[in-house]
């Protein structure tokens, strides 16, 4: 049996396409639940892309924290408020006609700036990044990046206190 062709580029193309399509769907959908689900699609596809690059821990964290916890909360709130589909408002005719060309021009401009201003870097190769394991991440978080890590946790703690104070007021 001949060796299979490398699957990485194929998988990358599939999941990159899913990510982009879900992102477009996120903007285009009128119903909040459909938009939220598209966002989950984006996050799931991103997790697979992380996985392809060798960042397995980040991929799992992406799924657990973003696709799991945070988006469940979003969906919960949308369901609780029973938000209906948005109606398309009357839009200016100008926006309708020149919207897409201007957007394309903007993207082209950004691409041009990145190409010309930023220094040339090596392209990403699949499988070259090997320090994405939980062990490596934990080690660098608790040694090299200990201060930012602790500061972030204090920030989150403040946010929790804030939430409690705000919630208490209403009782």
């Amino acid at each position, binding site marked *: 049996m001949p060796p299979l062709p490398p699957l990485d580029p194929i998988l990358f193309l599939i999941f990159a396409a899913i990510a982009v399509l879900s992102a477009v769907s996120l903007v285009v959908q009128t119903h909040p639940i459909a938009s939220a689900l598209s966002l989950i699609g984006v996050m799931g596809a991103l997790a697979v892309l992380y996985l392809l690059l060798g960042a397995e821990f980040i991929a799992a964290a992406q799924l657990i924290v973003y696709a799991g916890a945070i988006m469940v909360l979003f969906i919960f709130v949308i*369901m609780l408020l029973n938000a209906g589909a948005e109606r398309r408002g009357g839009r200016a005719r100008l926006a309708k006609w020149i919207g897409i060309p201007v957007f394309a021009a903007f993207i082209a401009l950004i691409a041009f700036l990145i190409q010309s201003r930023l220094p040339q870097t090596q392209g990403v190769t699949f499988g070259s990044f090997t320090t994405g394991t939980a062990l490596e991440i934990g080690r660098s978080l608790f040694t090299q990046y200990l201060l930012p890590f602790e500061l972030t946790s204090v920030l989150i703690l403040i946010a929790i206190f804030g939430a409690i104070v705000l919630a208490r007021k209403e009782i």
Partner: protein
Amino acid sequence: MNFYVVTLIKLALVMAIFMTTLAYLQWIERKVLAHIQLRMGPYRVGPHGLLQPLADVIKLLTKEGFVPRNVNIFFYLLAPFLAVTIALIAISVIPFGPKVNIGGVETYLQMTDLKIGILFILALSSVGVYGVALAGWASNSKYALLGGLRSSAQMISYELPMAMALVSPLLIVNTLSLREMVERQDGYYFGFLPAWTIFQAPFPQIISFIVFLIAAFAETNRVPFDLPEAENELVAGFHTEYSSMNFAAFFMAEYANMITVTSIATLLFLGGWHPLWPVEYGSWLIPVLLFVLSGIISIFHGLQPARPFDRITLPAFGILMIGLGLIFAVPFLQPYLLPLFWFTAKTGALLFLFIWIRGTLPRFRYDQLMAFAWKFLFPLALINLLVTAFAVALTTK
């Protein structure tokens, strides 16, 4: 042999056994509940209702898949698909036994080993809530919506204590791969006490085991946490509007989730496929004795039949059991069968506990449910984690 061929064979085997287990778990649950309540349970289809799952599957397959008016059809049909797919994927990373050598081919009794196996399971369980939540919302019915809302709130809340309860044994075994996790629980203290994480030094994980089990009940929406489908308040909760295979998909997802959480509890806390006491002291006799004993009991009852057809079915079953027991006594087969036996026995005991509790406990009230998770379970898991972390930090060099 080729890696792909071996993987395909394993895939087919696991698939066949897993699906059969799913179908028969339902039968076992109905039987056990019936006996708890002094009833017979399924009895008409096949001997002792053994063909009931088959009949159920045929019934559900041939029923009309009814789609009510005013539902959001896309999400209505997506929800059961999501629920069952996500629930079934989890089995792919669960190891059932150690490395074995079958006819010169070395392979693990596991479909694939991820370096982040436990995180993968957590990710699946956190994404799994969408099936239930979407089903509740897309049905466009107030009972289903309430069920979906309850389910998502409950799952967010109980995911925290579950994750916290998982972290403490992970500190002790020091790996995220499910297979290595079991390998680190090998060995015995004083020659008899197994080094499973619920007994392992420096800090036995009994508390986190209990917290994990309680959270697992909530994650799988089982009694006493079955508020998403509380039948005397919400008709059937999130799956009120579903029929036919869509309805069956939710049931399959529930049972598959049960198998996943009990397997995780077995792997992480109960030492996976390691026997209860060393093989040198004769722990291999346990499966032999168990099967032969149950065979003798059924033959004994077959000799004094309470019902006419027991004269045939019970002795036949008894001979089958004795045969199974004798297979376990063959030294040549033991390296393959004993790990599988211990894994299945532990998982099966936990599954029995799930069913037992369903037959015993009443349902929580909703505010009790939330208070229990946030004010008791979560702090308890957190304190346990703190103590474990200190113990591990003090004992590692």
